[in-house]
């Protein structure tokens, strides 16, 4: 039988965006919820690229744009394709509020404080070591100090989710299903940042970086502007590092020295270095999301749309949907897998699983064709602009002919056909 002491309605493990959104949804419905975080404060163990999305955060915290510790409102997206020493960049600029750069140590802490005000009981510096089961049903968790019991347990314990693995909901992760991300937050004064990126006041810019020190590897770089610092980092699929004997921070160091990047961070001092894993397996690697008395949300459920740099929004929506199902489950007194499957159904009907489904074939194709799409074509794009901008007395027609010829001499015709076929297959699976 369940112990009466240390018994609550719901336990949520992990105070990231998914766990907080989940806990606050339950507390607002008048239920008791305990949110357990292993860090010194919520956000202390969390790291990401840099932007949260207004749409999803506002849904949970309507006041966040005026009250939360935000860094900058992103008005510019740059897509920088780096060759060995040159680059081609596309800039999209629009003065809106789709996303904000934030520092997780401040932002997650703020969200958790809002959750606390809404009635969530937040416990920090506590590691959940085990999920307690009674028969086939999850009934609580074991921390280092004591056991806590609940009608429902929600696992928001992040990309490594040892707990979901423990109860058999998640299989072992393979190295190709995660990216290792390393980043540096570099201190620069506000005016310098505004000048370098063409910004004013609290406007922010994002640079998505392709190629450069990551040429030929399945990896992407990123740069975000904060109030008085710039975040630069990258994420590389773990199997690339393992197979090639690469050190992640050496690839980042080399990226920082690329002539198209170095001037953006020049003169800054390193404020903090960090690392984290990103779930990159996509749709095919999403685990079973529910079992008797338990649900999985956020990174623990591998909910990341890597092509669009989205993660925290998927986390928040999954947390909210699981929270809503938890409330209904508490109202009926039915905590069975069958009842909790409502969360699985809701998430399938939301953009979260729809988007992951849209890109279900992306990672397989990216792994197969990475040498082409992460090296050859990046170099060719730069070679085209090199040719187009060159002024060396060569007649233009000769330049064009030489460039077109190089496409067919630098890469086998069969490979070019395979590339085209891969693109067609990918587009077909995305659009149809």
């Amino acid at each position, binding site marked *: 039988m369940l112990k009466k002491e240390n018994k609550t309605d719901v336990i949520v493990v992990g105070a990231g965006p998914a766990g907080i959104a989940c806990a606050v949804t339950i507390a607002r419905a008048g239920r008791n919820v305990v949110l357990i975080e*292993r*860090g*010194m404060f919520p*956000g*202390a*163990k*969390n*790291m*990401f690229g840099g932007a949260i999305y207004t749409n999803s955060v506002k849904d949970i915290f309507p006041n966040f744009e005026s009250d939360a510790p935000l860094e900058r409102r992103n008005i510019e997206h740059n897509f920088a394709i780096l060759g060995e020493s040159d680059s081609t960049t596309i800039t999209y600029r629009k003065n809106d509020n789709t996303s904000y750069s934030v*520092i*997780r*140590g401040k932002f997650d802490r703020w969200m958790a404080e809002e959750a606390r005000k809404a009635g969530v009981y937040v416990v*920090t*510096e*506590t*590691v959940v*070591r085990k999920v307690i089961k009674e028969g086939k049903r999850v009934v609580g968790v074991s*921390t*280092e100090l004591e056991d806590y019991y609940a009608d429902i347990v929600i696992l928001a314990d992040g*990309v*490594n989710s*040892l707990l979901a693995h423990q109860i058999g909901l998640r299989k*072992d*992760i*393979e*190295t190709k299903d*995660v990216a*290792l991300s*390393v980043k*540096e*937050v570099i201190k620069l004064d506000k005016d310098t940042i505004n000048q370098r990126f063409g910004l004013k006041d609290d406007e922010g810019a994002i640079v998505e970086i392709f190629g450069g020190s990551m040429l030929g590897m399945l990896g992407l770089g990123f740069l975000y502007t904060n109030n008085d*610092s710039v975040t630069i980092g990258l994420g590389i699929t*773990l199997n690339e*590092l*393992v197979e090639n*004997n*690469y*050190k*992640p*921070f*050496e690839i980042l*160091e080399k990226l920082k020295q690329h002539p198209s990047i170095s001037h953006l961070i020049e003169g800054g001092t*390193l*404020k*903090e*270095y*960090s*690392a*984290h*894993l990103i779930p990159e397996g996509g749709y095919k690697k999403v685990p079973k999301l529910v079992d008797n008395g338990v649900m999985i949300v956020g990174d623990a459920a591998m909910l990341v749309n890597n092509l669009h740099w989205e993660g925290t929004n998927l986390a928040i929506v999954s947390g909210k949907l699981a929270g809503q199902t938890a409330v209904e489950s508490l109202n009926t007194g039915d905590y069975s897998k069958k009842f909790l499957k409502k969360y699985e159904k809701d998430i399938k009907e939301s953009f979260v699983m729809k988007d992951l489904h849209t890109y279900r074939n992306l990672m397989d194709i990216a792994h197969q064709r990475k040498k082409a799409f992460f090296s050859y074509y990046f170099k060719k794009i730069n070679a085209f602009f090199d040719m187009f901008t060159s002024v060396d007395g060569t007649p233009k027609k000769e330049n064009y002919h030489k460039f077109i010829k190089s496409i067919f001499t630098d890469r086998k015709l069969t490979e070019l056909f395979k590339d085209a076929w891969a693109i067609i297959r990918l587009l077909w699976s995305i659009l149809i």
Partner: protein
Amino acid sequence: MKIDKNLYTLKYTPDTDSHLHPKNEDCRMCEGRPCTFICPAEVYEWNEEKQELIVNFENCLECGACRIACEKKSLGWEYPKGTKGVTFKNG
């Protein structure tokens, strides 16, 4: 490149016991020893003389990459105690 200067920027509350437990008999047989280069904090070093893995667990960033990369899938990996480990202020 030495990673030490990067790690100096972090706040650590080290434990006295390691939360990382390699199985040295497996490490001796391991061909690639990926943990010795993929780790973003260079926690692992191979000691050729002693034929064992040196684990600088107090530098760990708790990312979990070594657990997944371990060829023998035998690295015992758990989170440090609640009051211990790394704290990111600017994550």
